[in-house]
């Protein structure tokens, strides 16, 4: 017998996960791993068959073909991760009616229209989009609070209708819903428009950090959500949850908040360590604390699923899909090369183009450095040395700390977070919150996938 190259990582005291660059993975006893490394011929037959089938171990005559198969599997994953299928983000304005304490983009004050996109830039941005990649186009409207410039969103839709054949585009508006009204609803009714709202938990939790001068942010959001669900249907509204310190103690409250709106599809994330979110001392917490919460949330969701309710959670779903599907490349953070420029092209309010949402956030923090890919008025994208370094930093395969990690074949890298935290795009993986977060998420996914049959079915359902 002969070993093929693999990485491993401890799951708990007894168990380890082994993985290879082809994306095969297996959970086994630590003792068996030692046996595999010292006396592969003497490991139990059923485990041996499993390891042979997953390209960890091979009979000598099969070695050349198995080696090629492993390389081929790696090639497939790489090709999938290299695909250029960007979401086109538009930031019609950076102004916002909220003053959230953890705002990632450093919103602009509501009375400063110089933070709005010009119509000229908007027109050029739509043309650029059409020239950069073939249809269909997924468009995401970000802010600030984009509905402050509903007129620009209308204009954008109209430009798309004029320039994109067969209406091969769709729009998601990321909004707090504070400004949604019947005019917007009527406009959206027969158009390919959906809404994505922030829902941080109960009213108390939501309003603690999402601050609206005149009213309760939560009350406005719920009213807007109910209006969309009632008038346009539940499939037209998605949710994103940012977990704040206050939410940590009440996972059930979060489930209740979703349930109140009939939302079965959760998307739950910890506070981002980006930009202003990190700096304002707004009651941050450690990822250890987050995972106490998150594990509790999962066990509550499992009970709900066992009671017959539909439940999905997009964050963990992404990790499960990366572990299982060789062609899954839909999440910008979890791919190598990262989604910078491949999964996202962002047209900022000031007419500049960015390779990711994070890049424009970092731009706000470091105005002295140019993080952009040029401006919409430039004849072509400008890949600066910095952008090159960001792309390079988004490849995890060869990075210290990643190259020996069992989750490397499924994971990615966030070079912009590294710039923000370490001052350069590679970062120190042992101190990286990206690393701690995703490794723990993968470990949780693996625990369920290799747990009881019920656990496996639950996590499969959650990842649907």
């Amino acid at each position: 017998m002969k070993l093929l190259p693999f990485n491993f990582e401890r799951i708990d005291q007894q168990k380890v996960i082994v993985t290879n660059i082809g994306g095969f993975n297996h959970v086994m006893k630590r003792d068996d791993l030692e046996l595999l490394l010292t006396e592969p011929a003497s490991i139990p037959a059923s485990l041996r068959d499993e390891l042979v089938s997953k390209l960890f171990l091979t009979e000598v005559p099969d070695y050349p073909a198995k080696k090629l198969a492993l390389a081929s599997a790696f090639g497939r994953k790489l090709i999938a991760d290299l695909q250029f299928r960007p979401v086109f983000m538009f930031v019609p304005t950076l102004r916002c009616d909220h003053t959230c304490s953890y705002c990632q983009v450093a919103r602009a004050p509501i009375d400063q229209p110089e933070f709005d996109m010009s119509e000229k830039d908007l027109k050029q941005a739509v043309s650029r989009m059409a020239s950069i990649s073939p249809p269909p186009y997924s468009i995401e409207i970000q802010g600030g609070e984009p509905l402050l410039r509903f007129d620009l969103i209308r204009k954008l839709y109209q430009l798309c209708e004029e320039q994109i054949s067969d209406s091969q585009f769709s729009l998601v508006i990321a909004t707090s819903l504070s400004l949604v009204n019947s005019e917007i609803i009527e406009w959206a009714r027969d158009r390919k428009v959906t809404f994505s709202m922030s829902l941080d938990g109960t009213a108390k939790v939501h309003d603690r950090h999402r601050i609206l001068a005149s009213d309760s942010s939560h009350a406005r959001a719920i009213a807007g959500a109910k209006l969309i669900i009632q008038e346009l249907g539940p499939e037209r509204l998605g949710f994103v949850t940012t977990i704040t310190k206050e939410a940590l103690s009440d996972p059930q409250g979060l489930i209740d908040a979703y349930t109140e709106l009939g939302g079965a599809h959760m998307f739950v994330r910890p506070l981002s360590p980006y930009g202003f979110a990190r700096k304002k001392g707004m009651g941050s917490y450690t990822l250890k604390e987050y995972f106490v919460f998150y594990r509790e949330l999962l066990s509550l969701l499992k009970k709900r699923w066992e009671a017959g309710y539909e439940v999905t959670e997009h964050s963990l779903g992404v990790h499960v899909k990366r572990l299982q599907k060789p062609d899954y490349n839909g999440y910008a953070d979890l791919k190598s090369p990262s989604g910078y420029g491949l999964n996202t092209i962002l047209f900022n309010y000031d007419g500049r183009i960015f390779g990711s949402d994070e890049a424009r956030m970092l731009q706000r923090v470091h105005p002295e450095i140019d993080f952009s890919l040029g401006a919409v008025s430039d004849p072509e994208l400008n890949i600066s040395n910095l952008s090159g370094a960001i792309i390079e930093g988004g490849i995890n395969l060869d990075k210290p700390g990643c190259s020996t990690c069992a989750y490397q074949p499924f994971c990615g890298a966030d070079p912009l977070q590294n710039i923000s935290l370490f001052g350069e795009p590679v970062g120190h993986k042992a101190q990286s919150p990206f690393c701690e977060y995703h490794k723990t998420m993968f470990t949780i996914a693996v625990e369920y996938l290799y747990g009881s049959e019920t656990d496996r079915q639950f996590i499969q359902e959650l990842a649907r």
Partner: protein
Amino acid sequence: MKTPERIDLFEVDSSVDLPHGYYRLAKNSIWGSGYLPQIAILPSIPVHEPDYPYIVDRALFETIQDGDIGMYSGRNKLRVILSRLANHNTLLLTERCDNRCLFCSQPPKTREDSWLLESAEKALLDFNFSGTIGLSGGEPLLYGGSLIKKLKNVLSNCPETNFHILSNGRALKDSSFCRELAGIGHPGRIVLGVPVYGTSSDTHDSCVDSSNAFNETLIGLINAGNAGIPLEIRIIPTKLNHAELSGIIELVGRCISSVVQVSIMNLEPTGWAKRNWESLYLSPSRYQDDLIKAIQMGQSIGVKTVLFNYPLCHLPEDCRSQAVKSISDWKNFYPTECDDCLVKSICGGYFTSTGGERFDPPRRIA
């Protein structure tokens, strides 16, 4: 022998002594000119003796459409080999093969039989079919470049004919041959069906009773997938390999590009499978956990997985929605027990060759 869903073999009397070979079957009277010789198939004895060869056979007349292709055995037997009314059409290109599968339904012979390929080319050109025609063997790719030349000719002259080639894939280890094959049709006009019976030489080579087969097939599949040829992977579960079903699906699902489907196929009691039945056949109920695991693997890895040749009642409930009514009509039947079954119309039924001790009876479902 059970009565099949469509009869393809006829005992006939021809008007003249016809030589053995392929013929274009013309209804009523001969028309036009083709690549193959023609015979008219008539429903009744003609009043005036025609000046072309003919066969009078009402049953045959009603079974065929004008322009179907038949093979005359030279001993008063005519088999309809390409039929516009059939649910599947497959042409045998050779009986030679470099594998010796224990369950081979078409046991290989060593004699030179390239007339089959020559005739197939003419038959395909005359048939000019809108749809997919199966090409099988033996091992069709043993012909190498001459097969490619003939297929290219048919593809360019019959713009609506597509091929599904059943091959052991070993010849595709030659990547330039593989690219040549990929180059002759627009994407999708040629699909390759390649069996993989195990996740290592140990199992696969035992099943195909040949050495180095697994390694050549695996490399061949990698080449074919990279060349962009759509691939159907076929697995026949037997006593030797049923535990490896999900492993095979993960192996091909992760390593091979362009896999469009994995087909798990119930053993067909014909050819060598008959003599090895005892050592190979396992009732599906004995490996239902392996089937369930395989279906789950297909779903989680994102590879379409289907079950061929299984009566629905032999499958665990969780797997039935993956079952396909797949047995060709000329060798398909339903035992009388099935008459009152509510799902008979969507069930694949049995092979006519299933009989005697090789008959695994229907069970009650719902």
